[in-house]
């Protein structure tokens, strides 16, 4: 273990223990003025609410909604149901609203993105946009991979993170390739249909023209 880590942990523990005994040692047997008492009664709530203040200004709608649900639960339920409701609502809302805005995990990378939803829904109509989005993502990932070396984390974490990033890059590359192939296939299909239509003008236009089963394949990757 590093010396600074140990030092931090020990000093932190000392400071915490100090707060535990100082009130007992210094304020024992004294009567506090009502003013002092009011201040002292308010302060713990002030500190607690300050610590969770970031949750109230989260930029993720799912988190804000989950906070409202948890707040309502906390106002009328004991601790265990509140915690369970909090976890369940945050998990469910992030899942449902997951694509937007992207969830950023602790490594600072996207763990859910809108690309999977759009790829499965509209692969044939907006394939170009998807590919552009994926190429952007690819660039972001490559940039992130470059930045790993200069980050303030230990060697093991760096190694894990680069590995994870490399895997993601590979997946995105595969996705782009799959989309490109699907688009080419769709074009070929369309041309063939047009040819057929030209050859047999009496026949009703084919219902085809859609990239075959692409969404299912692409979905798996993201």
């Amino acid at each position, binding site marked *: 273990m590093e010396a600074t880590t140990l030092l931090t942990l020990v*000093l*932190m523990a000392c400071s915490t223990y100090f707060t535990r005994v100082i009130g007992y040692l210094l304020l024992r047997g004294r009567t506090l003025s009502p003013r002092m008492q009011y201040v002292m009664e308010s302060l713990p709530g002030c*500190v607690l609410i300050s*610590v969770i203040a970031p*949750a109230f200004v989260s930029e993720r709608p799912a988190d804000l909604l989950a906070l409202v649900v948890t707040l309502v639960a*906390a106002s009328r339920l004991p601790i265990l149901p509140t915690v369970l409701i909090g976890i369940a609502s945050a*998990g469910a809302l992030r899942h449902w609203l997951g694509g937007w805005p992207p969830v950023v995990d602790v490594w600072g990378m996207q763990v859910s993105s809108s690309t999977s939803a759009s790829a499965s829904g509209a692969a044939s109509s907006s394939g170009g946009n998807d590919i552009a989005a994926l190429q952007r993502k690819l660039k972001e990932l490559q940039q992130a991979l470059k930045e790993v070396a200069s980050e303030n984390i230990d060697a093991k974490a760096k190694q894990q993170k680069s590995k994870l990033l490399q895997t993601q890059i590979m997946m995105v590359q595969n996705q782009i390739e799959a989309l490109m192939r699907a688009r080419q296939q769709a074009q070929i299909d369309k041309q063939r249909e047009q040819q057929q239509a030209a050859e047999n003008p009496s026949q009703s236009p084919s219902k085809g023209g859609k990239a075959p089963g692409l969404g299912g394949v692409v979905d798996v990757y993201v």
Partner: protein
Amino acid sequence: MLGFVPFALVLGAQAVQKGLAPLEVPLMTGMNFGGGSEFTAIRLWTSPPHVLLIVAMSFLVNCRHILMGAALAPYLRHLPRRRALPALFLMCDESWALALPDAQRSAARRVSLPYYMGVSAGLYMAWVSCTAAGAFLGPRIGDLEQYGFDMAFTAVFLVLLRGMWKGIRPCRPWLVSLLTAALVYKLVPGAWYVAAGAVSGLVCAALLAPRS
């Protein structure tokens, strides 16, 4: 006590992701034993850590212990210091919140040491073992935040706040703290928002306090 479990797992898992060794996690939670300060420390953790920042923020987050200790002191008079001081090491929000009303209800108006120690030791062991479990299991579970486990932290704090709630008027300083902390969090990097929220709440309480 079960409210601790998700809380502790999240703390352990996040600590390891921040670069702490799995064994350092129970070391921290065992020596420090204060969830709020540990979460704050982990959020601020870098490698190497900013010693003074983390120690100062721990003090700040735990400054409520000063009030809690002072509130508990009249009910600890029957204990010699050599027993009271080690017992206070285990004082946390939950054990305090259980021991104080118990002492106030009791005929002798004193904290029952067996009751207090029973509650505290149970909480202590649950806390240290579950944070350790989080540290060892966290990397295997993956990204806990995705599953909403981080909300356990907020949920626990909200329930603690509800326990202190005395109505809108007496709790106006909380609102000031919340607004200040949120604003500072948005504008200033680092953990200054905790300090700013606490101090603004303190000032507000001092101004609003009854004069007599």
